[in-house]
């Protein structure tokens, strides 16, 4: 069929038009491709710019990575592709690559005079879509548009796979196959993007008469409703059909909800450090962990870096965390917990990273989710509620945890100890004091050792603030949870003081934890809480310090409400997760969902409610659903980010499978919120 979008007769035509989002550039794709070039060498920069202009691309040049990042952040959809040098004085090219991957999910091409195999490999593992050796020839630049198209294609495919729009899928598939799908994809993509303004036009979309998948724009409010519905139902029971009923939004279809739910889950999973290979993990619980560890560490490091770059976290902290994370991996080998931590850390990290960029708000939500994930979902549903509170604390904790970062091995033991003793001291510091910004630093340093403990303790006290409502109990737990989740270093969430500090005792804290944690982390536990937290936050708008703190970490503190909301969630999640994973099964689903939700929620929060979601998140979600997901996971090596071994994925997948018989979230990144519709209702 002919995709009305853009396929048209000329495949090209649409793409450029659609890409431009109204730019008005004639269909001359790839002409008009918007390229951002980053290189500290002015000579190279000038030459590249000229070469790209000769290819009829629209070029923006930048000699500093920071400038490039802010440019990208300001113009979410302002660029199609980024070309960056590897060696730059202010920021390593790979770090920039990660940032971009996390936040904007744009294709990035690395270039360098260095053609050593390891450097090129690094580019690959960090997610670069290509690597050019300097001096760059114009011919090499002529074809960079293929990366843009390819990415769009893949995104579309993922979207379609979610199955939310069968009709659209079919159409799209056809169109994809027809031409290089650039037009089709882009057209659809564009449509989706444009749709976001519409929000909730599922019916129309469903028609897909135009080959476009109907896209529901998950606005903040809508997401809030979604989250509320999910929380109400309980993570394990949150099936699209029921969610739809609860939401009672006219025009929303079950498919929309399902896909959004899936994304949310993935998001949560991601937060909790579930790697994108849920399937793989299933058995290898232990083993993967180890692997993950290493990876996690790296990821964490990366994230840390991202975070550091963004703000609240100092580079130092991040570095520390990273180091810790790396160190951890080795140490952990036999310890489950570490893995968990890593994951948690990771999840935190992710949120952070994303947010770090400036979207602190995002982080909080992410963090929260991550936290939840990381935390073994041993907790029971009730705990979940606690988690909410805890999530808040977790958010704080995360921060702290982050600082602790890389020391999983240490974390395990440390966490336990720390959580109890230190966390108190430290957390208050971080949390209360400086809000998020401080946390990062604090976390990095003080927490490193205490990591978890620190987080935990203070939390207890703080959580109360956060959740005025009966969450207090939870908050305490959250402090416990605060643990490592944040830490990139993998604070063993499991072993995490959760149990120790507040009473979360459900966390076996340390030994027992781990196994549970792993399972828990998967998700379900944390999951629910996050939702609740969000809701709570919004409702209560209690800007408890925790929230603030959490938010700060993300730097999104601007929306204390929102941040907190997210934090709470995260915290709750974490806390819960830390708890024995009894609840995993149901929770995994949640976790995943949470992830997605988080994203969505974030968007919602921006609106001003306590929705923590930082604007960025919203933007991300809406603008680039794919990006959102990418951010969380992609940045660092895909595999690394979430310690797969941890089994979270396994858990998640298992849960998911159990829950809905869905296949493990393969597309974890698809936080699109729309496309994933694997959830069988």
């Amino acid at each position, binding site marked *: 069929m002919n995709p009305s979008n853009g396929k048209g007769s000329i495949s090209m035509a649409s793409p450029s038009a659609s890409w431009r989002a109204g730019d008005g550039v004639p269909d001359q794709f790839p002409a008009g491709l918007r390229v951002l070039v980053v290189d500290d*060498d*002015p000579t190279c920069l000038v*030459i590249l710019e000229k070469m790209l202009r*000769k290819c009829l691309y629209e070029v923006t040049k930048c000699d500093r990575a920071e400038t490039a990042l802010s440019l990208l952040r300001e113009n979410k959809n302002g660029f199609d592709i980024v070309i960056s040098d590897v*060696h730059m004085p202010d920021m390593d090219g790979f770090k920039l690559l990660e940032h971009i991957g996390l936040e904007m999910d744009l294709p990035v091409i690395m270039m360098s005079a260095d053609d050593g195999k390891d450097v090129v490999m690094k580019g690959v593992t960090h997610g670069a879509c290509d690597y050019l050796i*300097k001096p760059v020839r114009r011919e090499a630049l002529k074809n960079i548009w293929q990366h843009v198209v390819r990415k769009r294609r893949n995104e579309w495919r993922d979207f379609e796979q979610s199955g939310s729009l069968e009709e659209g899928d079919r159409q799209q598939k056809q169109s994809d196959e027809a031409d290089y799908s650039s037009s089709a994809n882009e057209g659809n993509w564009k449509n989706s993007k444009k749709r976001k303004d519409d929000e909730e036009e599922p019916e129309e979309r469903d028609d897909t008469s135009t080959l476009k998948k109907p896209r529901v724009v998950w606005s903040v409010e809508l997401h809030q409703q979604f989250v509320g519905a999910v929380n109400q139902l309980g993570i394990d029971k949150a099936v699209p059909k029921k969610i739809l009923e609860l939401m009672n939004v006219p025009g929303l279809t079950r498919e929309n909800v399902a896909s959004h739910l899936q994304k949310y889950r993935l998001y949560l999973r991601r937060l909790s450090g579930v790697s994108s290979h849920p399937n793989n993990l299933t058995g290898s619980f232990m083993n993967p962990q180890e692997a993950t560890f290493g990876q996690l560490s790296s990821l964490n490091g990366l994230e840390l870096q991202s975070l550091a770059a963004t703000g609240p976290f100092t580079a130092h902290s991040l570095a520390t965390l990273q180091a810790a994370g790396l160190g951890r991996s080795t140490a952990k080998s036999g310890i489950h917990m570490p893995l968990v931590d890593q994951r948690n850390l990771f999840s935190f990290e992710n949120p952070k990273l994303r947010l770090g960029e400036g979207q602190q708000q995002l982080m909080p939500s992410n963090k929260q989710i991550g936290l939840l994930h990381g935390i073994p979902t041993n907790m029971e549903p009730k705990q979940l509620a606690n988690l909410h509170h805890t999530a808040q604390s977790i958010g704080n904790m995360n921060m702290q945890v982050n600082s602790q970062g890389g020391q999983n091995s240490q974390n395990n033991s440390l966490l336990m100890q720390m959580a109890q003793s230190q966390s108190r001291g430290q957390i208050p510091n971080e949390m209360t004091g400086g809000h998020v910004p401080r946390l990062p630093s604090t976390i990095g340093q003080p927490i490193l050792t205490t990591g978890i403990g620190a987080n935990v303790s203070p939390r207890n006290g703080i959580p109360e603030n956060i959740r005025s409502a009966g969450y207090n109990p939870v908050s305490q737990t959250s402090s416990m949870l605060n643990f490592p989740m944040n830490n990139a270093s993998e604070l063993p969430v499991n072993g995490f003081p959760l149990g120790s500090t507040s009473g979360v005792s459900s966390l076996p804290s340390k030994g027992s934890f781990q196994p549970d944690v792993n399972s828990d982390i998967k998700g379900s536990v944390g999951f629910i809480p996050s939702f609740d937290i969000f809701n709570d936050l919004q409702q209560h708008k209690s800007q408890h310090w925790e929230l603030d703190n959490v938010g700060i970490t993300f730097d999104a503190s601007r929306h204390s409400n929102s941040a907190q909301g997210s934090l709470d969630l995260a915290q709750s999640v974490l806390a819960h997760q830390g708890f024995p994973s009894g609840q995993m099964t149901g929770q995994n689903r949640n976790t995943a969902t949470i992830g997605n939700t988080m994203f969505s929620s974030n968007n919602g929060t921006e609106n001003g409610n306590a929705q923590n979601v930082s604007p960025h998140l919203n933007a991300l979600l809406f603008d680039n659903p794919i990006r959102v997901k990418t951010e969380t996971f992609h940045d660092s090596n895909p595999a690394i980010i979430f310690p797969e071994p941890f089994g979270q994925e396994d858990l998640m997948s298992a849960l998911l499978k159990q829950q809905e018989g869905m296949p493990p979230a393969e597309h974890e990144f698809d936080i699109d919120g729309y496309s994933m519709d694997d959830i069988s209702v």
Partner: protein
Amino acid sequence: MDRNHPHRQLALMRQSFFDQGYLDEQFIQLEELQDDANPNFVEEVVTSYYRDSARLILNIEQALEKKPLDFNKLDGYMHQFKGSSSSIGAEKVKAECTQFREYCRAGNGEGCIRTFQQLKKEYTTLKKKLEAYFQLARQAGPSETACRPK
């Protein structure tokens, strides 16, 4: 057709750069980027290169005076310098950069210092040659510089 004297001179000069290995293919890439919108693009780029790399040269010199030598730092500088030089097609300079980096990796301070001297020589030589070249090009008039060997 008869080439003007300056043009012919220019063509020969240019060709000698390639034949003698002072410039490589990348220089041709630059020339191809020159057009009506940027009629002096090549000269502008080369000027920019010499301006920016002067700073690098200074940094390297200073670093070479420190004891003990910080090879990592030196390698970093040289990597940068190499990238720059290769982007304008300065072949001999680039070769010296590569050599320098090898010495850095081997921790050979003497080798580094020696190579750097050689590098500076090549760097300066090329600069003079290109300056003469551009001057001649200006005299020769707006017509395109010699046909490029393709």
